[in-house]
């Protein structure tokens, strides 16, 4: 957390236009969606998994919901069906990983590709789907509320509170930590590891879906191409940088919020500095490699039990 403050301080001194209310709000708005996605990813990573299909899942579920709304279904039903699709993908991921025993890295990677392809074939023939005008209910999610606070920020805060309570106060949350700490011990102790895995990925998909709806609310469209963008790396960057180790069993919501702020400041700073996307990607890549490297150093993998894609 201190890092974020320090970086913010440096940027505000060196960059004109950084330290202003307008910029702070713009920063908050952009960061909120990333933060929500990171919360979902953190759940999976704490369980020693990874969900590379998160963006793809949210893209296709949100796209489905929007398509259904455009087709005339009531908003409630359409959003529900989108949620059902997200949860189904999550459970399928969990099944492949826990029952078929495909390493998470490969299973979710392939799943992401699969669902985007399927959706483009049957549901959304063009890359993007626009929300037809007249559905202000959903768009309200993207606006500001009293005092100029963006609603996305409130949604992020709300999700953070819920996830925090889940992880720190519920038994299932504690099981996820145990799962990430030692799968074999969890299994022998009587924790149902397979259903738990499916739950972790279903939650990641669900929270991702909320993020997807926030995106739709901001821009009134869902563009499937985000599934092929580097957004997934941004999410992983937030999670790892914030202190949720890829080795599992460690981390909490505070880490994720700290990571979100840090990355948000970084991205915002790079935008103000007018860096082109290639340079931004290079910088993000270096930071991600450094973060994963430090994480590996602090939490080395057991060579004897490491698997492919660990």
């Amino acid at each position, binding site marked *: 957390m201190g890092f974020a403050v320090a970086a913010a301080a440096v940027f505000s001194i060196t960059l004109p236009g950084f330290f202003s209310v307008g910029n702070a709000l713009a920063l908050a708005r952009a960061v909120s969606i990333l933060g929500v996605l990171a919360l979902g990813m953190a759940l999976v990573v704490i369980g020693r998994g990874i969900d590379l299909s998160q963006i793809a899942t949210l893209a296709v579920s949100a796209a489905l919901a929007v398509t259904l709304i455009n087709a005339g279904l009531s908003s409630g039903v359409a959003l529900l069906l989108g949620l059902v699709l997200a949860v189904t993908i999550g459970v399928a991921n969990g099944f492949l990983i826990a029952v078929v025993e495909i390493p998470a890295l490969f299973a979710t990677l392939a799943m992401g590709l699969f669902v985007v392809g399927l959706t483009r074939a049957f549901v959304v023939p063009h890359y993007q789907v626009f929300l037809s005008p007249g559905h202000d209910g959903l768009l309200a999610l993207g606006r500001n509320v009293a005092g100029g606070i963006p609603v996305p920020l409130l949604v992020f805060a709300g999700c953070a509170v819920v996830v925090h309570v889940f992880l720190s106060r519920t038994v299932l949350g504690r099981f996820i930590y*145990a799962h990430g700490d*030692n799968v074999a011990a969890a299994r022998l102790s009587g924790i149902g590891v397979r259903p738990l895995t499916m739950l972790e990925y279903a939650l990641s998909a669900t929270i991702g879906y909320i993020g997807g709806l926030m995106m739709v609310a901001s821009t009134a469209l869902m563009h499937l191409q985000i599934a092929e963008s580097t957004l997934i790396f941004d999410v992983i960057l937030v999670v790892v940088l914030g202190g949720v180790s890829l080795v599992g069993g460690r981390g909490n919501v505070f880490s994720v919020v700290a990571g979100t702020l840090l990355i948000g400041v970084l991205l915002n700073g790079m935008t103000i500095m007018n860096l082109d996307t290639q340079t931004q990607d290079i910088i993000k890549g270096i930071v991600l490699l450094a973060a994963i490297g430090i994480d590996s150093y602090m939490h080395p993998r057991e060579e004897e039990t490491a698997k492919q894609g660990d």
Partner: protein
Amino acid sequence: MDATAPRDGAPPLVRIVSASKVYGGVHAIENVDFDLRPGEIHALLGENGAGKSTLCKVISGAVDLTTGEYLLDGRKAGFSSPSGALKAGVAMVYQETSLVPSMTVAQNLQLGREPFYTVFRKLNISAQQSQQSLNFHVDPLALVETLGTAKRQMVEIARAARYQARVIIFDEPTASLTPEEIQHLFHLLRRLRDEGVGIIFISHALEEALSIADRLTVLRDGKLVATVKAGEVDRAQLVRMMVGRDVAGGAYAAPRMAAPASAGRREKVLSVENVTMGAVVKNMSFSVFAGEIVGMAGLVGAGRTEIAHIICGARKRNLLRGGLIYFKGKPVRYRVPSQAINDGIVYITEDRKQDGFFETMTADENIYLGRLASRLGRRWFYSPRERKRTADAWIGALGISALKRSLKIIEYSGGNQQKVVVAKSLVQEPSLVIFDEPTRGVDVGAIPQIHAAIREVARQGKAVIVISSYLPEILAISDRILVARGGRIVEEIPAAEATEARVMYAAIH
């Protein structure tokens, strides 16, 4: 000179003087003297953990001595790695063969010494020649993965011979061979011996060792017991040398509890009938009754841990003809451990670091997690108060002496860690408890406490199985001893009639 006897006048190929190897404060071998003459087959005997593997690792260059000397041909052995040892002429043939399955025999023969550019024709011809000189026939073009164990061993021997090894060490070479293959192997060993090679032969099969070896060395608890000539001892004497120890002393000397007053008809809690799983468990059958402690003795690989895994649901027996298991009279087939735990069966693992506890959590959290994971403790919200209450009770009951409860369990001593793992399972209120190597890596002071806990569990009317590779422990704690060998139970000995020698004999033959 008689070609079949070791050349008694020749200086030893290998000499180990006062050798000790310490791992983390524990002596794997202590002050051992050993020598190997050229043209000799020397058998190395001892129980699990006696130090045989360590001694051979030292000789083959895989491990350095902590103190003591290793002389090869009268000079200090200067190598510190297996490849260095190979160059010096010391080769080891492992139990799990060290060949690459996807390559051919010929390729494996030159593994580690490949020329820069391989001409396959030359390679295959030279492979053929090597084998002919040793008089066995394996197709040099065959892929190793298609060969059976016996042939693979032949390839390994051929490879060692190509390195002009003068010392070859065999680790349990006959473990997976048929009697004919064993004879063939012995024939080969005799040929090598006649050419002046020194052979060290680790084995648990005393009969075989007596038939092939010129000399035998027995190790026990890391120390040398004796080195004898083959003609001077018999099987019984060897067994006594391997196990004879001061039964009166040590932490295992706790007096056996008198049989409980209600020893009459006790409920049969578990019945295992002809259970088979792969090649490790073959038609294993036994029963366990409430209130008794059944000790399971046997060598590593006899199938004890595996049957425990099957009973507790961690692994599955064969689907077809895999046998039957009855728990409290009901036939059961568990797919996951949580099902067994719900029925009342818990398994306390032999390797607590690997799958016993959660290292990022404290002792309290570990114990409480066991409760939460059982059907009795199921709840939605985590209660720090209940956690403290549960943990307090068990820390008291088992005497877990943690100075700071806020420490993560990884920082506790081995004994305390083991007690936490035991508590984590007992908190699930089982009816059958399986302890696998309950005092492995546990400090001496904690051993009697863990044994007292095991006895208390039985006294409360639960059925207990204790798997242990340490004979004094089995004898001290069991009401009844089952001896496992080769995947089945071969003998059942009531406590009153059990002696170390009898158990060991059953485990080996």
